[in-house]
């Protein structure tokens, strides 16, 4: 481990030396401007959530003259608001676990074996990741009503499998292909059965890949709205849908809307923070 760190440090320092020769002069400026461009709209949203509606509509202020937490208090005390967050998180969690469990063996098959129709199957999976959710909105509505899952987190979680499972297979396959096949063969020679080898040896090796995959599954399930909104009415309504409805109802409560928006950023930021090291390493290893 320490040797590895030492080599990594050595590489890093030599990279910086090598890179300093090739640096574009505008590099730091580009990056700063870009990050500024990313943060400004978010800053504005956060600021707006701390303002009173009177201040928002009365004129332009770059920061709140009078900080108020009333908007947040409304959300945390009103069940129709905070249950939206719980609903969203529950279907995202179900979907992430489901996608990874299903995708692991399939990705292993694609990365280790050739079999009848493998290329066509892989393409078909990939094409489902690309299919527009708008096509599926109405059929899903009929399907999940028919099997009695409508308006439950399971309906949304299963529906999101449409694009998350293929994506998970794709990413995991990339990571698994990076693991030398000799490891499998050695384990089999040592008398490991396939399930034991997979759980005890293989999964720890691709832990980074699983982390990155979980991140992407979380991300695409968390941000999707069209299907989530179509498949729920009351009991499993996601927060995103709560926002669109409540706001159009009684005029524009900008402060409340902004506060709800800010709170939807929180899970994302937490997830990024936990996987930040995986992303840095993971992006280089996997395909995505």
């Amino acid at each position: 481990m320490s040797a590895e760190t030492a080599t990594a440090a050595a590489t890093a320092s030599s990279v910086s030396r090598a890179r300093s020769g090739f640096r574009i002069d505008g590099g730091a400026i580009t990056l700063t401007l870009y990050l500024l461009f990313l943060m400004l709209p978010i800053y504005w949203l956060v600021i707006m959530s701390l303002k009173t509606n009177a201040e928002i509509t009365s004129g332009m202020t770059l920061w709140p003259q009078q900080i108020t937490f009333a908007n947040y208090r409304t959300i945390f005390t009103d069940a129709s608001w905070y249950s939206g967050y719980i609903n969203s998180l529950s279907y995202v969690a179900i979907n992430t676990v489901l996608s990874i469990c299903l995708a692991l063996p399939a990705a292993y098959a694609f990365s280790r074996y050739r079999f009848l129709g493998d290329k066509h199957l892989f393409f078909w999976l990939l094409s489902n990741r690309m299919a527009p959710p708008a096509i599926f909105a109405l059929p899903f509505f009929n399907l999940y009503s028919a099997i009695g899952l409508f308006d439950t987190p399971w309906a949304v979680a299963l529906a999101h499998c449409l694009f998350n499972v293929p994506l998970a297979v794709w990413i995991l396959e990339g990571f698994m292909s990076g693991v030398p096949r000799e490891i499998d063969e050695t384990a089999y020679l040592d008398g490991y059965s396939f399930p034991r080898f997979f759980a005890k040896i293989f999964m720890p090796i691709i832990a980074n890949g699983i982390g990155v995959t979980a991140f992407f599954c979380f991300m695409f399930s968390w941000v999707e709205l069209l299907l989530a909104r179509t498949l729920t009415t009351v009991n499993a309504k996601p927060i995103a849908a709560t926002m669109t409805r409540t706001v159009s109802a009684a005029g524009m409560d900008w402060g409340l809307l902004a506060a709800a928006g800010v709170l939807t950023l929180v899970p994302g930021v937490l997830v990024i923070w936990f996987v930040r090291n995986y992303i840095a390493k993971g992006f280089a290893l996997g395909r995505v």
Partner: protein
Amino acid sequence: MDRPYDNRAWLLVLPVLAIVAFSAVIPLMTVVNYSVQDTFGNNQFFWNGAGWFKELLDPSSDLGGRVLSSLGRNLAFSGIILAIEVPLGIAVALAMPREGWKVAATLVLMAMPLLVPWNVVGTIWQVFARGDIGLLGYAVNKLGIPYNYVSDPIAAWVTIVAMDVWHWTSLVALLCYAGLKSIPDAYYQAARIDGASRWAVFRFIQLPKMRRVLIIAVLLRFMDSFMIYTEPFVVTGGGPGNSTTFLSIELVKLALGQFDLGKAAAMSIAYNLVILAVCWVFYTVMTNLDVERPQAETGAAS
């Protein structure tokens, strides 16, 4: 290549096959079923054969005209955002720090827009770009440029393109960053010894190494912009007029708004076929790169 041939691998693929078939094949069958029928409500359906498809392909009919114009708008949109996001993403990736705490900080900040629910992206840009309460809209109007995305189609397009650049450039940048990180140090040293210019390093070392991830980035960005729905729907609702009505917005209008099941289903099938075709092209290009990769990688690793 040297992977063993074993049809038992199908057993490992079965669970995925089952779930994707459940959520893709069954709904698509429903769509095919609707596409050849007409309904007057009350769950009464009439056989319409290829009628909807004929109308779809005829630009002079109502349906054909709407689909064609939304397809044109959507292609224009995808073209514009690719032309901005890919170069910008590369530039940002090249400018990203390579070590230290700055890496983690930059990664976290950059990934943030990717984790924002899509309708909240719309909300963020709505409150940011409005002339009365938004920082951007207010500032641009103060500069003397008339800007109102609710009534002016050009302003609406600028807002939506800016929103998409804000939302997705980070994805391109992160992918390129991954490609750049996989370049062994020796390449840079060799280039330095040869006295290569900054441009030559980019053109002959960094760009070829990023080719794979760039193809993935273009594929993902094209597909996602081709089926964009939520963000423009929240900001402009497809307006002013129809100027930002993209394919998915048109489709949802037909299917859930007017409940024109037949028309919507026929459009869905055409839409899906376009996606399949584009996807197939990208897939072929990518598989060909996969075949090339092993030789190049083993050469680099040793």
